[in-house]
């Protein structure tokens, strides 16, 4: 394995760790709500009037209000669905490593990365808007490292965004010239100057055959591929 592959693999591991940690944290939050919901039911069942007295009529009259039970069970169902969604995303993400190199739709991949990292984006306090491409844009690339590169670009854009702290992600119009555009209303100059200048960033871009282009107004940048299929 050459330096390029080793550096890229190391970055990939860090990316995988960051995304998995965020997803597992969210699952822990759902488990905490489910746990407290079970606890609340237990608390309610222990309240005076809800303990079994042996008198069937009295027990029926004093039983837990149905609307509370329904409310708590709906809450549990919501959290189970939420955790299931997080796990599905995490599973899809894990499998992107086994896919290796394949023909990939850029719009779908950006959408998936944004969905996967939504909690991290929210934590940062930035809003990211995705404008999907009109026509599918396909590139042949390593799916996992493409996700890594897109995430790096999202993080860099969020970090650089100033003003209304909004990042808009759009695509070039020519499906044969793949291009992902990151635009911000205003940017922090130092963050824009430092954009993709590290050795690791350069390795990843070289591995994926991507170049970076800053726009003329310097309030955005694009990830550019030489050609698509």
């Amino acid at each position, binding site marked *: 394995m050459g330096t390029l592959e080793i550096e890229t693999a190391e970055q990939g591991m860090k990316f995988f760790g960051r995304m998995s*940690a965020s997803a*597992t*944290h*969210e699952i*822990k*939050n759902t*488990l*905490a*709500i*489910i*746990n*407290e*919901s079970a*606890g*609340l039911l237990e*608390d309610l069942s222990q*309240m005076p009037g809800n303990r079994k007295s042996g008198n069937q009529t009295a027990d029926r009259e004093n039983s837990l209000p149905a609307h509370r039970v329904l409310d708590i069970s709906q*809450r549990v169902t*919501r*959290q189970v669905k939420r955790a299931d969604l997080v796990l599905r995303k995490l599973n899809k993400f894990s499998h992107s490593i086994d896919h290796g190199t394949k023909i990939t739709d850029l719009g779908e991949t950006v959408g998936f990365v944004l969905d996967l990292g939504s909690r991290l984006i*929210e*934590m*940062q*306090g930035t809003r990211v808007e995705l404008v999907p491409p009109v026509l599918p844009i396909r590139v042949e690339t390593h799916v996992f490292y493409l996700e890594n590169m897109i995430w790096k670009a999202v993080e860099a854009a969020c970090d650089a965004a100033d003003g209304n702290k909004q990042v808009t992600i759009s695509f070039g119009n020519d499906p044969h010239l793949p291009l992902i555009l990151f635009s911000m209303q205003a940017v922090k100059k130092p963050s824009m100057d430092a954009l993709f200048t590290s050795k690791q960033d350069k390795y990843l871009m070289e591995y994926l055959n991507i170049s970076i282009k800053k726009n003329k107004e310097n309030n955005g940048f694009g990830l550019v591929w030489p050609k698509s299929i």
Partner: protein
Amino acid sequence: MSEKVLLVDDEKEFLEIMSERMAARGMEVTTAESAGQALSLIGKQSFDAIIMDFQMPEMDGMEALKAIKDKKPELQIILLTGYATVEKTVEAMKIGAMDFLEKPADIEALTKKIKKAKAEKMLIVEKQTEEKIRDILQRHGG
């Protein structure tokens, strides 16, 4: 007297259930969905303990912990987190967190920690009052 607790978490549903469970255990619970909201509340109300999620949008637990301790050093803060790493726990304790609990937390264990937090806060307040009285007496030649 009941414990006055400020519960801070960006998970609204968690706040709703936890506050109901804590209230059922005799606590007076106020909730905040962000560290910023919590900081504003501690300026207006008095609390015995703060139970705070460690990872929240805008201001994370560590920053919030520093800000609260700067404003009200006597306040006892118990951090709740999905995963507690040793490094983070040590760092938080150094800043002044009273304790750490992992989610999902056991309500009885949390209740015990809140009672301990109240007792510790009262000790600090008593000590502060004693120091103030001593200072006044010294200034007046007592």
